[in-house]
C-alpha cells in the first residue's frame, strides 16, 4: 500500500550568474509502507536535491514544482509551517557520514530529545527515557547519550544518528549515503541495523546511494536516476537481470563482482550540463545503443513488459514514434 508518492517533482536552482539549473526533472515514484527502496545514481544526478525537496529543506534559491503526497496529503502545499510539522514526525533524515550532523556543543541525548519536545510527542521526562531506549535499540549504551558527538566513533555516531531519526516514530526514514564515510565492517553493521529497524518497526526506508551492492543487499526496489530524471525503476532483481535502460545495465557492468570473471567497464563521457536545455534523451551521448529518435525527443517512463512495477524511460522500451 502506497505511503509516499512523489509526482512530477521538478527543482530549479537559480544561478548567481543568471539562468537556472534544472536539477530534478519530472521525477515520480512511490514508496510503500515498510518498504525499503534505493535511490541510485552517480554524483550530481539530483538524488540529494530530490530528497531535500521531499522535506522542503531546499535553500531559497531553489524553486520546486510537483507533489509529495504522504497518505494522500501534499506536504509541499501548505508552506513552511505545515512542512515543519511533518519533519521528523513523518519523514526523518539520516545524513552522509554523520560526522557533522550533530551539533558539536550539545550532548547526544539532548539532541535526540529536541524533536520530541518540539513536536510535543513526549513530555520532558518520558523523552529522556525514550532517548535512552533508542540508544540501546541501536546498539550503544544509554550512557553514551551523556557524551558529546566528538567523543563517539564514526560508527557510534551513525548509530546515534539513527536513534535520533527514530525519536518521533517516523513513517519514512530517508538515509542519504548513510555509510559512505565508514569503513566496510562498520558499514555492514549499520546496514544490518537499518534493515533490522525497518523490519521491526515497519519503517519505510528511502536509501539514497551510488553504491549498487548496498542497494541489492538492503532494498527490494530501486529508482535509478540520471541527469535529474528517472531512468528506470523496479524490483532490484529485475533491474539486475532484465535492465530495460542502457544506463542501468552499464551501471551494473561498472560494478566489480568477486564471483564472476566479467570485466569491469566504465561508462565513457560525463553527465550533461543541467543548466542548459537537453534535447532528446539525456543519456544519448553516452549510450552504447543509441537510436535515431533519441536525439530528437526525450523518452517517457513506461512500464516494462506490462509489469506496472517496472518502468524505464528509454526508446528501446517502446513508446510512440
Amino acid at each position: 500500500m502506497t505511503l509516499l508518492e512523489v509526482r512530477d517533482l521538478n527543482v530549479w536552482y537559480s544561478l548567481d550568474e543568471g539562468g537556472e539549473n534544472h536539477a530534478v526533472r519530472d521525477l515520480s515514484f512511490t514508496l510503500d509502507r515498510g518498504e525499503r527502496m534505493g535511490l541510485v545514481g552517480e554524483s550530481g544526478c539530483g538524488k540529494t536535491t530530490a530528497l531535500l525537496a521531499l522535506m522542503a529543506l531546499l535553500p531559497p534559491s531553489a524553486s520546486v514544482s510537483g507533489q509529495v503526497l504522504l497518505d494522500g496529503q501534499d506536504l509541499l502545499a501548505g508552506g513552511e509551517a505545515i512542512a515543519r510539522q511533518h519533519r521528523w514526525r513523518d519523514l526523518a533524515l539520516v545524513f552522509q557520514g554523520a560526522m557533522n550532523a550533530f551539533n558539536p556543543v550539545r550532548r547526544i541525548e539532548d539532541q535526540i530529545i529536541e524533536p520530541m519536545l518540539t513536536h510535543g510527542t513526549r513530555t520532558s521526562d518520558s523523552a529522556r527515557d525514550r532517548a535512552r531506549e533508542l540508544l540501546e535499540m541501536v546498539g550503544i549504551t544509554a550512557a553514551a547519550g551523556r557524551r558529546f558527538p566528538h567523543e563517539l566513533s564514526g560508527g557510534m555516531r551513525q548509530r546515534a544518528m539513527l536513534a535520533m531519526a527514530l525519536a518521533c516514530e517516523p513513517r519514512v526514514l530517508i538515509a542519504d549515503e548513510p555509510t559512505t564515510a565508514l569503513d566496510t565492517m562498520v558499514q555492514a553493521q549499520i546496514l544490518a541495523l537499518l534493515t533490522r529497524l525497518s523490519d521491526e518497526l515497519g519503517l519505510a526506508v528511502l536509501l539514497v546511494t551510488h553504491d549498487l551492492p548496498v542497494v541489492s543487499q538492503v532494498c527490494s526496489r530501486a529508482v535509478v536516476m540520471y541527469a535529474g530524471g528517472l531512468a528506470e525503476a523496479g524490483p532490484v532483481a529485475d533491474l539486475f537481470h532484465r535492465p530495460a535502460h542502457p544506463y542501468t545495465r552499464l551501471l551494473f557492468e561498472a560494478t566489480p563482482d568477486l564471483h564472476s570473471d566479467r570485466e569491469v567497464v566504465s561508462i565513457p563521457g560525463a553527465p550533461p550540463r543541467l543548466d542548459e536545455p537537453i534535447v532528446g534523451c539525456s543519456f544519448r551521448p553516452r549510450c552504447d545503443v543509441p537510436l535515431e529518435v533519441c536525439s530528437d525527443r526525450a523518452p517517457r517512463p513506461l512500464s516494462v513488459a506490462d509489469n506496472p512495477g517496472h518502468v524505464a524511460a528509454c526508446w528501446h522500451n517502446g513508446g510512440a514514434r
Partner: protein
Amino acid sequence: MRGWSYLAKRVSFSLMTIFVATTLNFFLFRVLPGDAVRNLSRVPHASPDLKAQLRRQFGLDKSPWEQYLLYLRELAHGNMGISFADQKPVRGAIVEALWNTIPMVLIGTIVAIVIGVATGVLAAWWRGSWKGSIGTSFAIFFYAVPTQWLALVLLIAFAGLLPSHGMSDPYLLDDSTGAKLIDLGRHLVLPATTLALTLYGEYALITRSAMLETLGEDYVLTARAKGLLPRVIVRRYALRNAMLPVTTLIALSLGYLVAGAILIETVFSWPGIGYAAYQAVVERDYPMLQGTFLVLTFSVVLFNLIADLLYARLDPRITL
C-alpha cells in the same frame, strides 16, 4: 589535574610576556626624541645647572642599565615611580585613571557587544535581502570610520545638549549622590557612544561571517530537518557555535580597550588611563609612560588568557 598544570604553564608564560614587554617599553621610551628634562626646563633663564639638577633628581644621569635595574627593583616592590610632571606617585595616578576609564569602557563595550552580535546574527539570517545589506553596510561604515573623526562629529552634533568635556561638572550645585550620578551619566554618553559605535561594526562583521559559516553546517540542516523553529536553530545551533570564535575575538579586543580608548579620552578630555598615556607622551614623563604601558600590557595578556580559558569552557571538544 591536567587543567591546573595547563593553567600554571599559561600563567608563567603570561608573566614572561609581561616581563619582556616591560623591558622593551623601558628602552623604547628612552629612544623617543626629546626628553623630560628639556621639556621641564623650558623656562626663561634655565641654566645648565638647573638641567643637571633635574637630571640628577630624576635619576637620568645614571646609565640606562642602572636605570633599568633600579626600575625593576622598585617595580618588584610595587613602586611604579614618581611622575616627572607633577612629582606624585605614579601608582596612585594610574589607579585613579583606571577607575575613571573602566565605567566608560565597560558601558561602551557592553552596548557594542549587544548591538554588534544582534546585527551580525540578523545580517547573516537576512543575507541577500535588503535588510541584511543595510545591517552590513552600517557595520562596515562604523568599522571603517576613524575614531577621532566620529568623536568630533558627535561632539559637534551634541554640544550644548550633552557635556563635551571631562567626567563631572565642577559647578554642580546639588551635591547629593543621585545628582552626581546623573551628572556622570550625562558626561558618559558621548564617549561611551563613540566607543560603542566604533566597536560594534567590527563585532557585527565578525559575528556575521561566523554565523554564515555555521548556518551552512550539516548540523543546521539536521536541526531544520528535525522541524525545530528558526529562532531555536539560530540560537542553539548557529549562534552557539558561531560564538566560539566571536567570544575569543571579543575577549582579545577587550585587552586593548583599557588603554586603547586613547583617542576617545583625548577628544573628550576623559581623565582615564588613555588620556594619562597621551599626557605622559607629550611630557616625556617616563615613569608615567612605563606605568600606563604596564597596565596596557597586563590587560592584553590577561584577556588573552581569559580568551583561551573561555574557549575551552565553551567548546567541549577542547580540553586543557
